[in-house]
């Protein structure tokens, strides 16, 4: 186990040392991210019945694997629904950060700054990148990422991916079930609130 190397230190101290040692990649301007020109966006008059993504996906395999691993830690499978990766959320994150719009470009720039930091931390702990690290190492690093008082770059990665993963997940029919949305079905009449709802709200 790679973590024996850190035995004299507590796990928390080890993570802090690793993070402190990692050189931070400067936040790149989106125009330096290998794009020669602006790819097409959604267009002014797209076909609304067909989902066509006209821009190329920009994440490489390793980045996608890391995003998928984080996505499933943010939204794991439980009794209310499947994990994020089971409904295509990592691919949605790739679609999002690859899009030729300002918000997407800044999301991509921050993602590409943060993923190497995370992988270096994982290598320091487990001897391999985050996606290939044991579950307990991933869990420890997620706790670091979730801590707003910890590493700024990793916490921003956590916030960005939580927004994209939760957004991507709950917009799918599986996400509807998981959150409790029961609409989008044709009804002959619209019913008033049920007795259960009225009781919950004290409406009677």
């Amino acid at each position, binding site marked *: 186990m790679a973590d024996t190397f850190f035995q004299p230190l507590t796990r928390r101290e080890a993570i802090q040392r690793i993070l402190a040692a990692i050189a931070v990649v400067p936040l790149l301007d989106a125009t330096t991210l290998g794009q020669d020109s602006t790819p097409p966006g959604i267009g002014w008059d797209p076909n609304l019945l067909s989902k066509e993504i006209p821009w190329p996906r920009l994440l490489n395999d390793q980045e996608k694997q890391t995003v998928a691993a984080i996505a499933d830690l943010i939204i794991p499978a439980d009794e*209310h629904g499947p994990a994020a990766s089971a409904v295509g959320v990592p691919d949605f994150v790739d679609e999002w950060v690859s899009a030729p719009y300002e918000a997407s470009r800044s999301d991509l720039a921050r993602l590409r700054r943060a993923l190497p930091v995370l992988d270096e931390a994982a290598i320091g702990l487990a001897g391999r990148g985050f996606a290939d690290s044991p579950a307990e190492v991933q869990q420890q690093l997620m706790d670091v990422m979730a801590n707003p008082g910890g590493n700024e770059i990793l916490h921003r990665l956590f916030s960005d991916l939580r927004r994209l993963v939760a957004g991507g997940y709950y917009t799918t029919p599986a*996400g509807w079930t998981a959150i409790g*949305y029961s609409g989008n079905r044709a009804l002959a009449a619209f019913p008033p609130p049920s007795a259960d709802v009225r009781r919950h709200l004290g409406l009677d």
Partner: protein
Amino acid sequence: MAFVTTSRTRSQRYDAVVVGSGAAGGMSAYALALAGAKVLMIEAGRNYDAVAEVPMFQSFADAPLRGVSTPEKPGGFFHANIGGWVLPGEPYQVQRRPDQQWTEGAVDNRMTTTQNFMWWRARMLGGRTNHWGRVSLRMGPQDFKSRSHDGLGFDWPISYDDVASYYDRVDKLIGLFGSVEGIENLPDSDHFQPPPPPRAYEEILQRAGPRVGLRVIPSRLAVLTRPLNGRAACFYATPCSRGCSIRATFQSPTVLIPPALASGNLDILTDAMVREVTLDAQGRANGVHFIDKHTGAEEHVNARTVILGASACETARILLNSRSVRHPQGLGNGSGHLGRWLTDSTGSSMSGRIPAMENLPPTNDDGVSIMHTFAPWTPERQREAARAGVPRGYYMAWGGGRTMPGMGTASQILPLTGNAYGRRLKEEMRRYYGSFIGISARGEMIPNERSFCELDPIRRDRWGIPVLRFHFERGEEEHRQVAHMQRSFAELIEAAGGIPDHQPITDGSRAVTAGGSVNHEIGVTRMSAREEEGVTDSWGRLWDCPNVAVADGGVFTSHPWKNPTLTILALAWRTCDRLMEDARRQDLNTPA
């Protein structure tokens, strides 16, 4: 008659050419064609199949970027609009607030923009009726005579009684639901269909409203709750803003254009940009010049009457560009009023969450996708507001509950969840989902001298047509009104047991929507009792060229808190009836 190309329009002489295909153009074509006139409708955008092109039931996962707003699709991917705040090759000029410099209007957020004005345009058959808000409120007697009532703004040259029978006809034709309430200056309809019941959060607001002086009543929306004229009733799913393939909401291409086409009297030319109205040697209009967008060629079509329903500012632009020796400042501008008195509804908003709605048992809040209830302005509210220096009113409307999750659903909930992830995050999402409400208001704007549009002295669009530039300022009355809205929002949210997301903004100028951003820009070709006071007579006919009529919101002399579409439909029908009568009398040059 049917959809045509310019090879046909070159050889025709129509009884009427109608510019635009939305509420004004669609209603004009309907009224004229069914009355027997041979009509050409010209639409600047493309043909649009309002049944086959509609994304019903799609989840946001079926859209690129989960359907979020982009510069090309500012209402979101599924929004039934082609166009928006910017159109490629069709600029308009606005002033930047900080330095008053002229700049091109851009995609922007209505609450944070530094532009003095935003101009929403649709380029599709049916125009904005494909995605309008469906709010259908009659203007009342005071709205037509507001200056007589309190000394502010202007009186219309017509009264409610002149329009009432047209409201009745429109209600029967388009279908709307509502309830008879007997509220002063908010006329009821004899043709309301039954309203749907309130959703759970709307029941909470209905109970909370009276505690803070608000009367909460069923909405009045152009959505069928009963079948009408072969159209299906709403089945309470999929948002109206996507359009409606079962034709349960009013849209010009599903309600007005099909019967007009079926009459055999309507030709429709799409992708044609009208540049100006042309006159004969006697000074009567004889047709329009337009650009065929497929070929770029300039074309002309002959007509005995021209009806402009291009949207208020686009109509003003056509008239300003219709310059001649006889009309050097533009057609209809003999009085100097063309382009002036530009108004847009005031708007403001506040969100909140209602803890009692957390962990609500499963419930379907889709309904008609728009609020089932609202709080109209009442005489009691007016008396109270007058003490705060607020002369004119507004209504409050809302959204909330368990609507189809979009990207915003997670963004709204996540700040409440600490930094949870995993199973705990999923629990928190279930807990908070549907516990939010967003309240908005739409209010009256009093026309002022500082708000107008004019031709830009330099800039032209891709077809060489001079473009508009906008001057726009709200008045102090509007700023006080918006501060009043903010206080009312917080009072209502708190009375509902909720927590507002911000303290009421006391400086109304910081909480009011940007001019134009509510998409109710009207008044720039106003009607008047005397020729020197406006652009059109009381029938919408140009004072200085009466075989040209304005059918859109340009003719509004005041801008009450009611959304303008229903009144545009009623006035357009009234105008067309008058034009048919003129044609029968052959006295187009003699206004009544």
